[in-house]
């Protein structure tokens, strides 16, 4: 299976899905008008990754600037899908990055921690501003 790379745009994040490294990176802002369409290829890729040869360890790096509620629904779907892999004995680590003073992104991370059964790290970064 191929890697999936999408450059960052005005309203959508940079996405890197790398099978060999077992890496999922989502970086930037995510406010697409139709998040379901936008994230479909990502969810499809993860399904394929799970079905083919997933790595023993998969790292998910989420570094969001801000995102709309439509996106959060896609994120929960993505995490749930990875949860299945985790239950089958694969190691999954989610790193949720937030800037020190960014309460909203920190709080969103806490929402996901509460709802998921996955190793989920909140990683604080120094403010860029």
């Amino acid at each position, binding site marked *: 299976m191929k890697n999936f790379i999408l450059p960052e745009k005005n309203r959508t994040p940079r996405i890197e899905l790398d099978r060999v490294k077992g890496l999922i990176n989502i970086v930037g802002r995510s406010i697409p008008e139709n998040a379901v369409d936008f994230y479909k290829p990502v969810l499809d890729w993860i399904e394929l990754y799970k079905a083919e040869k997933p790595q023993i360890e998969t790292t998910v790096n989420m570094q969001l*600037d801000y995102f*709309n509620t439509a996106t959060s629904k896609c994120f929960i779907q993505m995490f749930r899908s990875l949860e299945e892999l985790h239950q089958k004995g694969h190691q999954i680590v989610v790193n949720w990055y937030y800037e020190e003073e960014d309460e*909203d992104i920190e709080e969103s991370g806490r929402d996901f921690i509460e709802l998921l059964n996955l190793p989920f790290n909140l990683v604080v970064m120094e403010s860029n501003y």
Partner: protein
Amino acid sequence: MNFLNTLLIVYIFLDYFSDNQILTLYGVNACFLFNSVSLNLTPVQLDNLTLKKFDVNKHYDELRQLDDVIFSYKGQMNVDLLDEILEHMSEKLVDTKGQVYSLKRVHIIAVEILQNLFHHYETYNSPDGQESTDNLVVFILGKEEDAFFIQSGNFVSHDRATFLQSKIEEVNGLSPEELRKLYREILSNGNFSAHGGAGLGILDIARKSAQPIIYQFKEYREDRLFFELKVRIPAVD
């Protein structure tokens, strides 16, 4: 009962239903808790009492002339327009040079509101496909001394109005902790339509703004109400 007293009562009564209502409200900065026109009023009562029919163009012109308006839009809504509005709105917001996390919060709330206007716009297009003022949307972003505000307006049916009223009342009645809990519940259920839905947007707005959501309906014509939403977002220094 003397004549003056009677006159005064009649005046207050009429003023309550006139279009001045919103303007009066903005005139007094502190007065955010406006008395919304209750949906229980039947159209018949309103027809008898309203001297002027609600005029969206006039209403918008009055709103955008207020001080503190950063960005305003009135018009149709489609995917290209949505893109353009988001673009301009973001630029104007950045120009305010506010605290960065505060601006991000305002921005994401504005995005939720605009995308909502877009998603519900199609459903309420005029049946004959003719251009009319019945399907105009209004969006205003402004900044007062200590808070940003976003005000939006669009036409809705009575059914939609009833739904919106119950959703907003529900959300306004919740504590921050209850809001968080309900938000997580809905997110967890994953029971969404393709376009948002399930009220997650309104919950997110309430959580992030940490203020009651202000709203009102104005009678326009049969089964057509103008729905106005106003959100205040405290500015952080």
